[in-house]
Each structure stands twice: as C-alpha cells, then as structure tokens.
C-alpha cells in the first residue's frame, strides 16, 4: 500500500494534543463533555494506530511512515518518527489501552478536567516515545510520560498514594539520571553531532568498551521502568496507589517503555554490549520471574497480586531480550503486547470491584462470582491469560521466550518455568478466594457491571482472545524487525 507522505505518526500525536487542548478549553464543570472529548480523541488514536498496524507493508519491512525534519541544527536534533515491527505492536497496544482506560474512568467525578488533561499528556509522551527515532526526543517523551504520573497518583490514587507517587517518580527519574548521561555519552563519542538513532546505528561507530559501558547505563536506566529485579520495588507500590486508568496505562504501557527503550536504544546502538551483558540480563530476568511469583503468593491486596505478577511477567520479556535470538525477540515483543492488554484488563476489573466494594483486600471479598459475574469473568480471564493458558495471547509470548531461553540458558530457563508454576498457583488461589467460596453477605447488594461499562473490558478480552487464536497476526510484523536485527550482528 502506498501511503503518500501523509504524517500518520504525527497525526497520532496531534490527536492527543488536540484532545488535550479540547479538555483544557472546556470549563471544569462540564465533566461529561470532557469525558466525551477524551473518548473521541483517544478513539482516534486507536483507529490511527490500528490503521498503521494493518497498512504496514510486511513484505518490505524496515522503517515505514518515516517523517524526518531537522529540529535543532546546532545540536543535530531531528524530529524523526517512523514505525517498524517493534514499534507497531506497541503503538497498537497504547491505542487500545488508552481508549479502554478512558472508558474505564467514565464514572470519575473528582477533578475530572485535570485528570484527563494529565492523562492525555502522559499518553502523548508514550506514543511519542514509541514512534521516535531521535535520542533527544526519546528522552523528552520519556520524561513527558513520567511526570504527570506524580499528580495522577497523588491526587486520584488510594492506599498510601503520596508515598507511592513520590517513590515511583523518584525511582523512574533516577532511571532517567542514567539514561541521559548514556545518551550524551554515545552522541559525543560518535562525534557526528547528531541525535538521530539511524545515523548512530552504523556498525563500528563505538568501541566495545563504550558499548558495554553505555549498555549497562541504559539497561539499568530503562530497566528500572521495565520493573527489572532488583529495581522493581516502585512498581507494585505505584500500581496499588494509582487510580484504575493510571494503573492500566502504567502496567500496560509504561513498563513497556522500559523494555522498549532497552530494545530500541541499548540493543540497537550497543549490540556488542548486549551480547556481553546478556548472561547477567538473563540472570536478573530469571530471578525476577521467580521472585515476583513467590512474593505474589503472600499478597492480600488484589492490586499487589497483579503488581507482583507484572514483575514476574516483565521478567519474561527481559529473558526473551537476553537470549540474543530471533525467537527471543519475537517472544519478548509479543509478551510485551500480551502482558499490556492482560494487565489493563486486570486493573480495569479490579477498578470496578474496588469502586463498588471499596476494598481490594482478598479476605474481605469472596464469592464475588455470584454477586457480579461479569466483573469476575473479566478478572478470571485475565488471570488465565497470566498463567499462560493456551488460546490466550500471553501463552504464545511465554512459550516462544521459554523455548529460546532453553536453548540459550538451560538452567535459568528451568528456574523461570518453575516461576510460572508458582504464578499459576497464586493466581488460582486468588481467583478461588475472591470469586468462589461463600459470598460475603455485606457485598450481596452490589450490582454487576452495566453493559456500557463492560465495553472497555470486552474490547480488552477480545484482543486477548484474538491474538491468542491468531498469534501470527503479531508475529509476522515483529519478525520484520527482529530478523534484520539479529542478522546484522557480528558473530
């Protein structure tokens, strides 16, 4: 398909910014209008990202929909956007989670205008990061997507919200404290006076030592956001404190920024550093998988359960990246997508349960399946996806990653799979305690999810099932990026 020169990627950003502008123009009292505007513009971003996903020429591969303008001549900064097999699934994921998160927050009443304005700002940063190919802009988008987080959690959150917000913000900006020096280091060492990623990707530009150093800084910096053990501690606390939509975007998309950053910057620019550190990466990932699952076993708060399972699942992404193989990359990116949709569904259903019951404590719930069967069904579906039940999206990501990991690191692979077994155990325990057993009489009067409120959850569930049944829809696209990347490595 020929796509003229129309700046599709920029239009996604413009849709976010127009939405933001629209929200800011409306008076704070017109909450419903603000929500409608939000839904409209987030819907536009979803449609656009879906369109790009479909329109991407899989035969041709490589970077498509390229937009490149010189931005700051003195520093060699380009406004350079493009999409490839790695970024398209992420853009689609962002579109899906964004739209459904806006719908999930339909019942919000407290400071509606500010919430949606900050939320749009956050998502603009996320979209920008996934499509940008300029180190300066990647860093800018990274921070744009982080700092609205502080207010979003601290104002609209629950459970120790101010502590959670502060911890999260400081941790993630500590990550950026490593990323920025690494970026400047690479740019200066290359000596090309350019921040353009494609220009810096030429092989032989950096010495092995520089690659190892920069990779380490970038890996830890982005790894903090990706929830890599032992830098994950902000993540469960932040998830628990955050309001529903923010948890969704946060666990669903923002943590992916971390692994995507490792992939896009660290791995693309420092392939030798990647190979050098892969053993250590695999070790951290395996520990993260097992650790997340074990700690998850002991949790009593639904959101903490999902928070720790995220640590475990993001460990799988890390393990995939660490294998330095096509399968590993495919699996990792697939898992990023699948985990994003799955956690969004998790938090979306927990959000509904919490709104109605005002508790997230597993002990205080119980038998919810009889009181609110629909809300329960969504949670249970997400839990099954999390365990890796076949025909649901996560299954494929986990399968491929573990296959690749077995080949590369048999011991760590086995350890990681044992983590999966533990996570199945704790997920089933949570499902059993929360949704089955005798219903809590105090909750008996509660109503089930209305059809309108089910819409976002249905979308998420459908996506999980769709990509579970037809994984090649996604793999075909990812493949176009992972094959050339691995092919370009010097053995």
């Amino acid at each position, binding site marked *: 398909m020929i796509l003229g020169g129309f700046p599709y990627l920029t239009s996604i950003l413009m849709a976010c910014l127009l939405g933001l502008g629209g929200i800011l123009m409306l008076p704070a009292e017109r909450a419903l209008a603000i929500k409608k505007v939000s839904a409209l513009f987030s819907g536009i971003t979803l449609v656009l990202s879906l369109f790009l996903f479909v329109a991407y020429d899989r035969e041709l591969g490589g970077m498509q929909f390229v937009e490149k303008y010189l931005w700051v001549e003195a520093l060699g900064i380009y406004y350079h956007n493009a999409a490839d097999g790695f970024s398209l699934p992420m853009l689609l994921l962002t579109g899906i989670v964004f739209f459904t998160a806006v719908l999930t927050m339909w019942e919000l009443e407290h400071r509606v205008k500010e919430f949606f304005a900050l939320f749009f700002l956050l998502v603009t940063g996320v979209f920008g990061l996934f499509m940008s190919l300029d180190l300066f802009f990647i*860093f*800018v988008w990274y921070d744009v997507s982080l700092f609205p987080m502080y207010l979003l959690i601290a104002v609209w959150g629950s459970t120790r919200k101010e502590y959670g917000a502060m911890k999260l913000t400081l941790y993630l900006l500590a990550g950026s404290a490593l990323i920025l020096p690494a970026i*400047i280091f690479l740019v200066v060492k290359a000596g090309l006076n350019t921040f353009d990623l494609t220009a810096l990707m030429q092989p032989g530009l950096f010495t092995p030592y520089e690659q190892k150093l920069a990779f380490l800084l970038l890996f830890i910096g982005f790894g903090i956001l990706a929830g890599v053990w032992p830098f994950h501690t902000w993540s469960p606390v932040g998830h628990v404190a955050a309001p529903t939509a923010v948890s969704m975007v946060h666990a669903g998309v923002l943590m992916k920024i971390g692994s995507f950053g490792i992939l896009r910057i660290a791995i693309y620019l420092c392939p030798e550093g990647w190979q050098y550190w892969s053993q250590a990466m695999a070790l951290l990932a395996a520990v993260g998988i097992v650790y997340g699952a074990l700690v998850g076993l002991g949790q009593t708060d639904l959101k903490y359960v999902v928070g720790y399972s995220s640590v475990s699942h993001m460990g799988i992404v890390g393990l995939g990246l660490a294998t330095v193989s096509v399968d590993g990359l495919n699996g990792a990116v697939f898992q990023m997508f699948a985990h994003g949709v799955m956690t969004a569904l998790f938090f979306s259903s927990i959000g509904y349960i919490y709104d109605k019951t005002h508790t997230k404590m597993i002990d205080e719930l119980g038998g919810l399946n009889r009181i609110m069967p629909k809300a329960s069904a969504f949670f249970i579906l997400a839990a099954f996806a999390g365990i890796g039940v076949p025909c649901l999206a996560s299954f494929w990501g986990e399968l491929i990653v573990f296959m690749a990991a077995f080949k590369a690191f048999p011991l760590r692979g086995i350890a990681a799979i044992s983590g999966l077994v533990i996570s199945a155990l704790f997920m089933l325990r949570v499902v059993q305690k929360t949704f089955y057993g005798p219903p809590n009489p105090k909750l008996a009067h509660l109503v089930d999810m209305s059809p309108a409120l089910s819409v976002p959850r249905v979308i998420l569930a459908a996506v999980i099932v769709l990509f579970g049944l037809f994984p090649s829809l996604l793999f075909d696209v990812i493949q176009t990026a992972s094959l050339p990347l691995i092919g370009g490595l010097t053995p």
Partner: protein
Amino acid sequence: MNWALFNTEIFYFCAAVVFLVLAMLRQTGHRTSYHTALFLAALGVVVCIGTLHLDGLLFLESYRIDLFSQVCKALLAMGLLLVVCLCSELEGVAAEWHNEFYMLLFTCTLAMMLLVSSVHMITIYVSLELSSYTLYVMVALRRDKVTGTKAALKYFLVGVVASAVMLFGLALLYAACGATYLTDLVRLLPPLLNRPLVMTALLLTLCGFFFKLAVFPFHFWAPDVYAGAPNQLAAYIATASKVAAIAILMRVTAVAGDATGFLVDSLVVVAIVSMTVGNLVALVQKDLKRLLAYSSIAHAGYVLIGILSLTPAGYSGALFYALALVVMKFTCFLVVIKVADDGRNIDLDQLAGLHRRAPLLAMALMLAVFGLAGIPPTVGFTAKLLVFNAAMQNGYLTLILIAMFNVVISLYYYLLIVKAAYLTEPAAEPAPMPVSGPVKGLVFALVGTMLVTGIAPHYLIELARRATRVLF
C-alpha cells in the same frame, strides 16, 4: 572616544538619577514611581536590544563592548523589567523608601552591566563592589527592619570577606604576571598556570565571583538574604544578579585558556560540593524562599559544569543556562510574591489550595519547578543538556552522573512544592485569588518562553554560541 558605545550604561545612569531626584522631592506617590520605573525598565530593554550589535573598546581599553556583553546586558535589562513588573504592590518596602529602592535597583543593574563589560582588574573590582553595595542597602530596606538589617548585615559581612579575598587574589595575580588587563593575562597566564602562586591567585580571585554566584564555600549568605530581603529583591538577586556573576566568571576563566589541571579540578570540586550541599539542605526547608535559595546554590553548581569545560560549547551552555534560570526562578518568585500579598515570607504549606485559588499561577509554578528540576520539554532541560553535552566532550562522564543524581535528589523537594500547590488541602476554604490582566499576560509570556525555548531552542543556542565565541 565613541560615547555611543556607552549608550546603555548612560541610560541606566540617567534612570537612576531620575529616581534620585524623585526621592529628593519627597514624592511619595507609590503608583507614580511604579509607573515611572516600569516605563524606564521597559525602555531599557529596548535600548539594550538596540545596542546589541555594538562592538568596541572604551576607557583605555579597560571596558569592552561586544556581543557577549550586550547579550548579557539585554538579559539583565529583562531581569530588571520583570522584577519591576512585580513591584506594583511593593509591600515589603516602606512606602517612603520606594523611590530609593528603584534608584538602587537601577544603579545595581547599571553596576552589573559595567561588570559584564569589564576587561580590566580594577573595572571588574569596582563594578562588582558597586553592585554588591547597592544590594546590601536594598536588603536593609525591608519594612520589617529587624529581619532586613540582620540579613543585610550577614550579606555585607560575607561579601566584604569575599571581596577582600578577591582583592588579595588580584594583587597576587598582578605580582605573578605584571598585568592588569584580561587581554594581557590571556597571553601571559597559560604558561604560568602550574605555578603555585598563580594557582592561588586565580582561586582567590574567583572567590569574589563565587560569592556573587552563591557557590560553596561562599553560599552561606544566600538563604538568609533571600528570606530577609523584600520578596521582589530576592527575585532580583536570584535572577539578574546570577546572570552578571555567570557572565564575569566566564570572562575571567576564559583567561586560563583551555587548561586542564588544577584550576579545572578545583572548579569540579566546587561544582560537586555546591550541587550536593544545595540540594541536600533544600530537602528540609519549609520556607519557600529559603528553599529557592538552596536550589540556587545547587544550580550554580550545574552552571559551573558548563564553565569548567572552558570550551565555547560549555560557555554557550552556561549562558543559555543563565537565561533559563532567569525565566524559571522568576516564575517561582512571581507566585511567591502574589501569594504573599502583604510582603511576608511564605511557607510551603501556605501554597495549599493554590490550584483552586489561582489555577494559572499553580500551573506556572508547576512548570517552573519542573523546569528547575530539568524535566523536558522545558527550558531547564535544554540548558542542562547543553551543559552536560559540553562537559561530556571533555570526558566528564562521572561528573555528569553525579550531577544527574543531584537532579534526582532535587526532584524530591521540587515535587514537595508541586504537592503543596496541588494536593495539600488548606484548613479553611481559601478565598479565590484574583489575578489581574497584566499579570495573566506576564504568566502566559513566561510559560510560553519556558516551553518554546525548551522545545525549539535553535535560535537562542545560536545566539549564545555567537556571543561566547568572542571570549576566545
């Protein structure tokens, strides 16, 4: 001699004289003096921009007009204009002293303009002292006499010590090189740099500028003076005065050429200690102005990172940083002054409910604070990027990592400000805070500048590069 080169300074001198006359006439019309000051300050900006292209030497070649000095003067003029804009309710100063206050403000700006153009030891010293003494007096003008006098005295004592040390350094420098012109020093100094006498001389000389910039170990005055001075004056010290200090520090360090070694090492130490001390102490501050003072100390450290590169890239980064500081710090002070409508000092808690009382001010404050923390897409980030980029070209990776961790530390207290403005609920329902039309315009202009120069800094970077190129 071409007096046309001296236009800007003459203008500010005349402006000061106007207020001297008004003061002698005992004109106590508060609005009249405010409007006069506003008019003169605005005219001053026009004059400065009009003289941007001038180039030449004056007064036995001890006074140099070049693009660098003119850009700094334009920045100073803008700083003065912004501060005067805030003086519409000059509650911190007793009404009968308003004319004197403006007179000293213009004189001080004049002194700083002289400073950024000075290329001779004596002119540097004289203009530095002139600017310091006017500031001492202005601090003492605070309506609350005890606070004002205490702060002024502290300022004065630290300042006198610093200037004595600096004078000693200048004397040693003269003893070592036998020259008093910076242009001669550029020639004579580099081969002598490793002699202990010259090292001591340079370090002692820099102390005078460290005092101005509030760099460790001459930073003790900053928190007390910020807290003790009238709010508008604190804003002035935090913005314009810093520009002058950064500018003259660049002129003087440029003399050392591209030397590595002792001078650079000591600047590295001073930069690291300043950032760390400033940021750590700021963590526990309750008074907003004291907090901003400690953040200034930390920012002086970041600026030094640019200066110690001793390269055109580093200097242009530092100059850009000066501009960024003016805009961001000024926005913070604008909020302080508007919230403290009776000229008192305010605590962080008193920002409570600001997002409802004045949403626009709260938003501007948040943006300025994020800018100070160096978060994109604000001008503060671009400034840091430029400075770090220059330092990396000299291979200071560790220094940059230390600086970035300082940024993370500083984020904590910057977030406390945001929290106070957006989260903390006030005890009683606060009255909405009316923001007048001109102030709204000013806030929009500041916010626009912070964002636009953050996202599209190209023109300013070019200007800073051209301006700093003349130093080499």
